[in-house]
């Protein structure tokens, strides 16, 4: 399995965000991590990346516990939720810098062409629009060849053309046997891409399975309503 999480707890002050998550992520699938705002999706992802330090529990990536380690991040490509880049450097410089820091082979040329970013290479990041920044973000994430890809809200700000390209890109990576985690609020995108759904509610895993099982369990006619139903039954429970 790619990721194993046992009894993961995290609180920020008095605010309990994750309340004992147990989870295994198997190789070669696309997982969608869903849940209402503030349910702990980003905290869970950041815990896997080691950006948030759990209060309790164990996380293992590719069969190795991640505590006090950083080398495992070489096996992860991460797309952060909000593309916050250093404002004063050029797109080209940023790409070069990340390549230099990461020291792995990369395929940025093809991705730059795919998203039509050539005209922006010599522009400063602060001058780019939200969607263009997100394209740069995507290039930075996909240019390395790592077995695990984590995408936090990858569709934010993308135009339809770029969205189609992104979907193709994700499918291509999956075909290579990579494991992909996605969070998104766009249900149509999730339905199209994901094999498995993880539904987080108030810091616990409320549902895990594929879309067929979800429809069966909730008795709703389509995916979007099924997710909505999970949310409402959850808050009643």
């Amino acid at each position: 399995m790619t990721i194993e999480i046992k009894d993961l707890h995290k609180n920020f002050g008095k605010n309990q965000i994750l309340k004992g998550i147990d989870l295994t992520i198997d190789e070669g699938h696309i997982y969608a991590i869903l849940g209402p705002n503030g349910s702990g999706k980003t905290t869970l992802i950041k815990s896997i990346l080691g950006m948030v330090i759990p209060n309790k529990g164990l996380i293992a990536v590719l069969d190795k516990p991640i505590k006090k380690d950083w080398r495992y991040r070489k096996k992860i490509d991460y797309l952060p939720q909000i593309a916050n880049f250093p404002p004063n450097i050029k797109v080209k410089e940023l790409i070069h810098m990340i390549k230099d820091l990461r020291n792995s082979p990369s395929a940025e040329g093809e991705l730059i062409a795919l998203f039509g970013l050539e005209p922006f290479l010599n522009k400063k990041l602060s001058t780019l629009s939200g969607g263009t920044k997100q394209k740069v973000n995507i290039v930075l994430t996909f240019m390395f060849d790592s077995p695990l890809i984590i995408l936090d809200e990858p569709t934010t700000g993308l135009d339809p053309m770029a969205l189609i390209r992104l979907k193709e890109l994700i499918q291509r990576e999956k075909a290579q046997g990579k494991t992909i985690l996605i969070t998104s609020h766009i249900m149509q995108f999730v339905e199209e891409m994901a094999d498995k759904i993880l539904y987080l509610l108030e810091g616990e895993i409320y549902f895990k399975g594929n879309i067929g099982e979800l429809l069966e369990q909730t008795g709703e006619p389509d995916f979007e309503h099924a997710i909505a139903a999970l949310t409402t039954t959850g808050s009643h429970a």
Partner: protein
Amino acid sequence: MLKILKYSFYDLIRSRWSYIYFLFYLTLGFVLLFLNNDVSKAVITLMNVIIVLIPLIGTIFGVMYYYNSREFTELLLAQPIKRSSIFMGQYFGVAGSLALSLVLGLGIPFVLYGLLRSNAIFDFSLLLVTGAFLTFIFVALSFVIAISNENKIKGFGYAVLLWLFLAVVYDGLFLMSLIVFEEYPLDTFSLVATMLNPIDLSRILILLKLDISALLGYTGAIFKKFFGTDLGFLVSMGILLLWTVVPILGLGHKAKRKDF
């Protein structure tokens, strides 16, 4: 860590503020030498400026850099880099570029003036060394403050308060306690109290090397007896080093536990 240091350093060297800081010292050096026409006197005037200004600039620059590079830090945190390397790299980048501005900015005019042939070279080097120490100390302190405060305004506030306390308020309290307890022997107390504040320590260290300690009266004699010796000098340098290392360790400690 070296790669992060390199990027932070280049980032700062390219920024306008580093140039302004550098040009300020360059101008100060030339003007003082021109007006005084005497290296020793210029060193004294410089000391008064440096002892207050370096901590202030170090504090403000440190806090500003930390908050401004938050996005960059977050980007780096998801990369295969050790956490402590990220923060140490940034810290040494900031402190290093500030120290370089100081040393070059003051060094160039003095060298041109003929410092190498004058006997004030030791005083001047001491001035630069303590200046560099103060830079490293106050940038480290400001990084610790910034990493402990998510709120920029609070972080800035605490950093400026720290500077104000060590540069101004501390001396006031020190002086008051000397007056209040004047009936008691205060030799050890004043020595220790001086050691506890890096700004005071640097000031005394330079003053005593400049042979104007006679101005300090009786207390001056005690200070001279302690700081003037080789042992006193080494102890003071050791304490300045301690003032640098402790906040850096604190920064490492904080960085390990913080959530982003």
